[in-house]
């Protein structure tokens, strides 16, 4: 990998070197490095671009990194990654995509992830999207994540779009079984004339299923964000949706928490708040010695943590 690719790898996966455990690094449309373990297998798909990640029953304390790097201007790809996670697992999956585009052609990555999680498993999923580059070519990302969460399982998703993506349409759909729980913390920062649309859809199908979905967005410049959290309670369940946003400059944010209950024992709650940074927060940090600009940056850093 060249220096640009290494830097992007650091941004999306916090990796300075090849990770421990299973990994597949995709760079400019090709597999750049791969490692499998006794419990985690990675197989290239034959019918379309992408990989199958197969995690055996009972796999504990293992991780799998599958970052994607695009540094070639004009590269557009659609990649399918399917995760088959067995029963009684406890694993961490780190995905993410970084695009560096210094050319004049648009680059795009559409990642379609599907998770099939067995019973009583714990999955931590971290996904970061990042873009950079001085060229006129734009950077697009349209990730779709589909989750089937088995009985008694928990999936904790920490997804973020840090910076530099011109346009994104992010879809996350999840079906939650009995006693299973989905946690999503989704964070988006947009600037200049960037646009971002996110749909987080969750069906609480099983008895005692739970979902806690929190979306935090910051829209700067002339950027526009549209976030929908849509929870359906189809059984005795608990669901919480929170859209929390900060607007700056001429930014626009549309936040739509949507709840549907089709069972009298479904308990669903939503909250939504949009506003500028509270003046008292800036003042407080200024009393500690930060300038107004430094205070704003610190508040946003914390908000999107």
């Amino acid at each position, binding site marked *: 990998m060249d220096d640009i690719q290494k830097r992007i790898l650091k941004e999306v996966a916090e990796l300075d070197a090849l990770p421990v455990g299973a990994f597949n690094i995709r760079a400019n449309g090709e597999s750049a490095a791969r490692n499998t373990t006794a419990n985690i297998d990675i197989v290239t798909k034959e019918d379309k671009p992408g990989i199958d990640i197969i995690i055996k029953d009972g796999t504990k304390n293992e991780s799998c990194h599958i970052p994607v790097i695009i540094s070639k201007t004009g590269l557009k790809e659609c990649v399918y990654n399917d995760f088959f996670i067995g029963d009684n697992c406890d694993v961490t999956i780190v995905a993410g995509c970084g695009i560096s585009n210094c050319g004049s052609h648009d680059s795009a990555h559409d990642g379609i992830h599907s998770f099939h999680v067995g019973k009583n498993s714990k999955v931590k999923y971290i996904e970061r999207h990042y873009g950079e580059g001085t060229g006129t070519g734009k950077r697009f990302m349209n990730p779709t994540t589909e989750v089937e969460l088995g009985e008694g399982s928990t999936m904790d998703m920490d997804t973020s779009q840090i910076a530099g993506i011109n346009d994104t349409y992010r879809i996350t759909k999840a079906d939650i079984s009995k006693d299973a729980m989905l946690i999503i913390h989704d964070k988006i920062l947009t600037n200049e004339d960037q646009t971002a649309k996110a749909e987080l859809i969750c069906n609480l199908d099983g008895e005692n299923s739970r979902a806690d979905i929190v979306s*935090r967005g910051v829209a700067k410049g002339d950027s526009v964000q549209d976030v929908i959290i849509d929870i359906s309670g189809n059984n005795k369940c608990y669901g919480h949706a929170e859209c*929390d946003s900060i607007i700056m400059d001429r930014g626009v944010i549309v936040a739509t928490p949507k709840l549907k209950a089709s069972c009298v024992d479904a308990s669903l709650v939503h909250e939504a708040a949009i506003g500028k940074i*509270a003046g*008292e*927060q800036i*003042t*407080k*940090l*200024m*009393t*500690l*010695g*930060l*300038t*107004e600009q430094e205070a704003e940056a*610190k*508040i946003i*850093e*914390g*908000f*999107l*943590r």
Partner: protein
Amino acid sequence: MLELQNICFRADDKDILTDVNLKIDDKFVAITGPNGSGKSTLLKVIMGINEPTSGRVIFDGEDITDLPVNERAKRGLSFAFQQPVKFKGLRVRDLLTIASGSKMDLDRDCSFLKAVGLCPRDYIDREINDTLSGGEMKRIEIAMAAAKGGKMSLFDEPEAGIDLWSFNSLIDVFENLREKTDGNILIISHQERILEIADKIVYLKDGKVARYDTAEVIMDEFGMRRGRGCKCAHGMEGESCNG
């Protein structure tokens, strides 16, 4: 150390402060007075949070009237809010690190929490949000002011809104702070035990300095000691003075 020259502050067609003149050189000075007398406004004028309608603020020989809040902070002023500000996502350790003005030092930051009676392990990674109680927020606010340190720390009624148990240990915190800190303390308080440990007391009424003298003289003059049968620190039983 701090000199206020003819400070006036007017808002919503009301005079909140009128021609306030003060020279503060003592180590521990308390500001007291009835509700609405302009105490918090005065402290905010000193910190630069409120801009005076007229008058000058001189700190350490320098006219700081036109300096922004952060520049005053750099010159050695720190400020603890009466109602501590909450954040989303920022943790206690983040603010302690900013306050101390250098890289994170876990031992040092934990010592500030210990000094206000909080177990560092339980609080250092807590977010400064609605999950903290009023008493916890107050202590963290004081820890931040101590971490910031400097030549003069301003405290806006630290006892307001906290329970009795927290209050008793809060007094210990200030007695400790008075002993250990190198800087001066200017504190708004209604509480006898805080007023007692002050070198001097400013008694503010209707936006004016009604009296400014040693704690002993002022407390006797206004009957601020409970020992005399008063139920409030100002001896104004029945009046609303938060005493």
